[in-house]
């Protein structure tokens, strides 16, 4: 039976709670159908914390096999690199994680915090947070870029704030089956980080015809004015809907790019930085002049039903050309 040990570091617990929303498979099914033996989870384990200590000892001594180590939370290294701002008993969690990682067949960073540092590593990074193998976008982090687990894998980064429930439960199920898992350039499983959030967003038609909202609360696209990162962010939010029902962009909440190493971005999160009337950052892979040409044509073709009476002022891509 593959064993799983879940440890929280500088965390809010949101990834664990999101995991409870997984249905295919659910956490219960991971245990009952995929044969995962949950050695420890801080919120769910019934055993007292002395069992936690005993497990850490046995795993690092090589007496207890550890197939999957899940780390949830930023790696806190303050003060002065000791990690003592986040500790268990008299040991920095940072050191416990490092020891457990050496003994694990596979290590999974559950969420952007453990992967890249996340929200706690945003300036001024008050508790000197980093990720397991990245510090924001830079390779390194706690374990260093060259580190590999016993199975020969880098840390598998199931990014997201929180990570998508199925990105977590399906990655775990796949690892428990012992199958190879394809990773992208920043070690996220490709299966969950190839599509854009933009793909499947039900505001796509608005983007298509350059119908861009100026204020929250509308039905239009939020890319031009409200800071939406959907066209630049890789995640399954609009493919495998959250809780089976929706996504932030469908609900009118701009994507904040939480699966990216630089989340949260510098600058205002609900504003789009622009050159003239066009965003500085364009949909991933798009060439600026062609995009401009397309947008100008698109705007001229906008169907009347999208020019809703209650829609606020339209975006004015054309003004840049005029």
């Amino acid at each position, binding site marked *: 039976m593959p064993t799983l040990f879940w440890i929280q570091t500088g965390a*809010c617990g949101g990834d664990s*709670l999101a995991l*409870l*929303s997984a249905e295919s498979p659910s956490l219960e099914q991971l245990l009952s159908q995929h044969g995962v033996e949950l050695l420890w989870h801080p*919120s769910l384990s019934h055993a007292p914390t002395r069992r936690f200590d005993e497990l850490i000892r046995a795993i690092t001594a090589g007496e207890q096999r550890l197939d999957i180590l899940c780390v949830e939370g930023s790696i806190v290294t303050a003060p002065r690199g000791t990690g003592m701002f986040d500790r268990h008993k008299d040991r920095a969690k940072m050191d416990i994680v490092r020891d457990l990682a050496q003994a694990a067949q596979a290590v999974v960073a559950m969420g952007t915090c453990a992967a890249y540092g996340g929200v706690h590593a945003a300036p001024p990074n008050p508790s000197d947070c980093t990720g397991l193998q990245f510090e924001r976008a830079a390779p390194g982090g706690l374990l260093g870029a060259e580190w590999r687990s016993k199975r020969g894998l880098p840390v598998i980064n199931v990014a997201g704030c929180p990570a998508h429930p199925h990105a977590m439960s399906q990655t775990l199920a796949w690892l428990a089956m012992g199958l190879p898992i394809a990773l992208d350039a920043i070690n996220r499983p490709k299966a969950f980080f190839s599509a854009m959030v933009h793909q499947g967003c039900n505001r796509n038609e608005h983007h298509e015809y350059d119908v861009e909202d100026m204020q929250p609360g509308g039905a239009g696209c939020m890319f031009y004015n409200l800071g939406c990162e959907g066209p630049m962010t890789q995640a399954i939010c609009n493919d495998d809907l959250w809780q089976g029902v929706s996504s932030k962009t469908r*609900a009118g909440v701009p994507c904040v790019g939480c699966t990216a190493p630089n989340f949260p971005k510098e600058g205002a*999160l609900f504003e789009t930085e622009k050159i003239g009337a066009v965003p500085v950052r364009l949909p991933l892979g798009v060439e600026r002049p062609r995009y401009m040409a397309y947008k100008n044509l698109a705007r001229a073709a906008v169907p009347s039903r999208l020019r809703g009476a209650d829609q606020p002022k339209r975006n004015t891509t054309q003004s840049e050309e005029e």
Partner: protein
Amino acid sequence: MARIELNLDLNRVEGDLEIRLMVEDGVVVEARTVGTMYRGLEQILIGRAARDALVITPRVCGICSTSHLYAAVLALEHAWGLHPPANATRVRNLCLGAEGLQSDLRHSFLFFAPDFCAPRYVDRPEYARVLAEFEPFQGRIYRETLAATRRIVRIVAEFGGQWPHSSFMVPGGVSMGPDLRRLLACRAELDAARQWLEQSILGGDMEAWLALPDASAFHAWLEQGAAADAALALLNRFARGLQLHRIGVGSGHLLSYGACYEPEAMARGERLTRMSGGFWDADTGRVQALDQGLINEHVRHSWYQPYAGGRHPWEGETVPDYRPDSDRYSWAKAPRYGDKVVQTGPLAELLLGGDAMLQSLYREEGGSAWLRQLARLRRVAYGLQQSRSMLDEMALHLGEPHFEAPSGAPAEADPDGDGYGLVMAARGALGHWVKVREGVIEKYQIVTPTAWNASPRDSQGQAGHWEQSLLGLKLGDSEDTTEIGHIIRSHDPCLVCTVHMMSSDQRLRFSPF
């Protein structure tokens, strides 16, 4: 006289917790509660755009992120003089209610009840039944709770897109209004939750349960027919068998900000709640109207740059000053109401809100670990009722606005202002205080429910509520301190929110079990 120091660690709380106890002749004479983590989210907010608080602050806590979002949006609206349209408040209340249901149910049946499965209770009456219901991943109620809470958070996803960590509440309203399909989808989730509550937990009709007028009606309910076999009655019998209705009182001062903001009043700029809040002063025996100006935080025993006395959150500072070798012992500040140590949570919320049954039990038996847990389960019924009213009211007001844009061009810098937002989160009174200057956050202070409950000592040396709740506890066998787990978990601790770390001269260390 045997005087020993115990250091305990607790899991199954949101975060990690250490407790230091002084025990004399088997009785707890001094307690210090300490978490183990410092993250510094308030500092991260300083200098960021004001609305970024809607993204950053939900990430304070994974189990109550919607309550942080609600407090943050109220603080910004207060600072900018905005009043959300009624439908916005209805959507906010519905989603906060759903998150609260999730939290109360998960806490009760995934975190609190499993303690009753401890092997030391094997010879107690009904132990086999307790295992069958509450054993992690095996027990019937445990499994049903996983399934029921998975459904209930869909309500937040319907309006917020996902749970946790959405930012669908914005100054001026919410990002999406109600429509027929969403209302009915949410209604289906509430109906399913109510049906489960009535069948598995209460063993009877929810409205009848809420109408119970006093303690004797409560006891009678638990002895009749289906209710006697349901989970609540089982928990009640087992908890009372363990004397949990007699221990863990803590502070008698109660704080609630009031639950369920009144949608029409909010639209007029009046922050009224459907269930009233206030401050119960146990010394005078009187309820006082809430005055947020009386809230202040001390750092005398916390690892922050010292200042004298307490400071109102608008004047507060959070500058780390880690001194492990001093008499300071926590990353938590010590919030006080005036100079009073208070407890907050579902018990405070429902006692101040006028729940007759709990008031009667409180008069007869006093506060206790079990009464806090019972209040949490009782609030589930209120949460379902309030959430349902929000749906019904929205159905009558379809098409009314859910967002009103602040005046002024969107590119204009947000105006300067000071604001606060107070909500009753799952664990109790949650407040955010913000100062906006030149479009960015100059100051941001968060006082979480667990900050109130788990506070360290203040400038006057008064112990916090949890610390008080452990005093006098008899520890039969000091190596087996299951009772500590019951008491602390009855507070529904959320350590990720609040309490940070300690250094201690650990002389003795025992596991709580």
